[in-house]
């Protein structure tokens, strides 16, 4: 049964994706379709962080940098080229290259996790500042003015490959964005199932051990970081096609938002951040309409989002996906006749009563690191503080 659950999950996700892909354009108005396109591009952005933070353990505050870089690269290249196909490819390649450069210095420099977050955040803030002040005439790349804080409102819409001038309709952009989202989602799933993906997860679990097994963790981290950068660039490309590029793409609220999506959806899953992203965007949009309503003008969407984040971090730290899984497990327990009526005493001895093979049901507990003192040798017993140094070391390890 449990072996089919992942497969079932994949089928459900695929069907849901396809339903949105083909169902929405038939019924929805253009306004809604454009909104859904933005959601889909943000969902790809959420996946980019879900992959590198949730699976490789790299907390990047800089996904906004790659997101903005992707958007700007596309806009500038498309204005200059005329045809958008090459520009779209560059929108993925340039952020990936930038991630490779940044990642090389961070991973080969053995920067610790906290500083990695600081560096990536700083990089996106520097880009934000830089792009913000490019209002003057001198900031023109080819025929594309960078436009400072106004961004590039004339961001071209994608045209059909090889047919410059024949722009995609909003419905087509929507289909492309959702299609890419589905592809990226299953692409990440497939990647994580490979040897490469499993080693990446192992690095998150214990980087030192990965080294002792003979893998150079730096290469794996770099590759997955570059993939994350490329995906964020792709997201920027689709965003540029549903709105237009502006410096806010690099801004702190965007960086923060991505992290909030991942936390609320569930770190260490792929579907969680996508759901978290869409729910938070729906909430943001709804809060935005609230100040039209009398008596609710004081509501600040950012404040509400902040409260939501705090509530989640404190009460649902593992996110919505874990919450849903726990609820299902709890319901199963309540409904199964064998378990009913045995009360709390049953729970306490759960782990021991069940067979060793039943690991899915036994409650997670701290690894038992206590040492039997019985096999202390006569020699070591003679010295009081000799009590198995390993024991003390193990206990003092966080």
């Amino acid at each position, binding site marked *: 049964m449990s072996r089919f659950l992942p497969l079932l999950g994949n089928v459900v996700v695929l069907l849901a994706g396809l339903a949105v892909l083909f169902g929405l354009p038939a019924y929805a108005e253009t306004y809604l379709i454009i909104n859904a396109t933005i959601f889909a591009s943000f969902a790809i952005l959420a996946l980019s962080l879900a992959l590198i933070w949730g699976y490789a353990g790299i907390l990047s505050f800089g996904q906004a940098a790659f997101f903005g870089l992707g958007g700007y690269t596309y806009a500038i290249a498309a204005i200059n080229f005329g045809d958008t196909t090459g520009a779209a490819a560059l929108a993925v390649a340039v952020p990936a290259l930038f991630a490779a450069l940044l990642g090389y210095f961070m991973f080969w420099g053995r920067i610790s996790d906290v500083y990695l977050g600081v560096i990536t955040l700083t990089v996106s803030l520097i880009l934000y500042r830089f792009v913000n002040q490019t209002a003057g005439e001198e900031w023109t790349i080819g025929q594309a003015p960078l436009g400072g804080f106004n961004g590039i409102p004339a961001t071209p819409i994608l045209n059909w490959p090889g047919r410059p001038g024949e722009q995609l309709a909003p419905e087509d952009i929507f289909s492309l964005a959702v299609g890419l989202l589905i592809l990226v989602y299953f692409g990440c799933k497939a990647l994580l199932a490979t040897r490469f993906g499993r080693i990446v*997860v192992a690095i998150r679990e214990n980087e030192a051990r990965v080294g002792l097994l003979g893998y150079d963790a730096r290469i794996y981290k770099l590759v997955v970081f570059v993939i994350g950068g490329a995906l964020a660039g792709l997201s920027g490309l689709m965003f540029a096609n549903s709105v237009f590029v502006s410096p806010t793409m690099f801004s702190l609220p965007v960086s923060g938002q991505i992290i909030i999506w991942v936390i609320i959806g569930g770190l260490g899953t792929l579907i969680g951040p996508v759901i978290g992203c869409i729910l938070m965007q729906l909430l943001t949009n709804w809060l935005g309409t609230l100040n039209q309503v009398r008596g609710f003008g004081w509501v600040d969407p950012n404040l509400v989002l902040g409260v939501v984040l705090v509530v989640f971090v404190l009460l649902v730290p593992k996110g919505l996906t874990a919450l849903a899984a726990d609820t299902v497990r709890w319901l199963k327990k309540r409904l199964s006749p064998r378990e009913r009526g045995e009360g709390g005493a049953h729970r306490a001895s759960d782990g021991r009563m069940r067979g060793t093979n039943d690991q899915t049901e036994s409650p997670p507990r701290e690894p038992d690191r206590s040492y039997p003192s019985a096999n202390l040798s006569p020699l070591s017993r003679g010295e009081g503080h000799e009590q*198995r140094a390993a024991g003390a070391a193990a206990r003092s390890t966080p």
Partner: protein
Amino acid sequence: MTAPPILETRGLTMRFGGVVAVNGVDFRLQEAELRCLIGPNGAGKSTFFKCLTGQLRPSGGDVLFRGRSVAGSFSHAIARRGVGTKTQVPSVFDGLSVRDNVWLAAVRVNPGRLADKTTDDAMQRVGISHIADRIVGQLAHGQRQLVELAMVVAPEPDLILLDEPAAGMTDDEVDRLVDLIKELNKRHALVVVEHDMQFIRRVAKTVTVFHQGAILVEGDVADILVDARVRDVYLGKQAA
């Protein structure tokens, strides 16, 4: 004396600020030899061990693996030369299953299907096949030790370094470990760091005793265990 030893250190020194944890150690291990390192707390065993595995970069001296210097290499580079390491505190992947843990060790040297088979074999040899699908973080300390041991054994390294392998094991697990070490020693060279004298008696042939960052004495296990100097450093000698 034609073939170089599988492992040799020349004047190996490790300083932490003003503290000299390992002081000019010359150590030789022949192919297929089994050597036990003992010594009281703070003798420098573990620091010496970490210099061998690349977890620490020695401040001085050299480490040679089959005649080639590996001092200051990264641990993954040393592992690729054919060195398998079990650390003092079990270094495992707590969030993954036992099978995944061992598979990750096996797959570096064995592609595809072969990795699955090597994984099963290694779990069998160490005796953890019955817990293959459990999450390592939920296991008892002794079992985690066995998981790490299976990870060390799976890629069939030429040299196996074990830091306190018996810590936290039940008597049955220790019995299995003793058999396993003897079996491994038929094909591999081993260095075992241990505190437990009972355990040393059961597996050791040659013993090196560390004291204050240097080698105090080296010799046959029977002689070492009755050596007055060894007894003194372990019990804390009165006369200086």
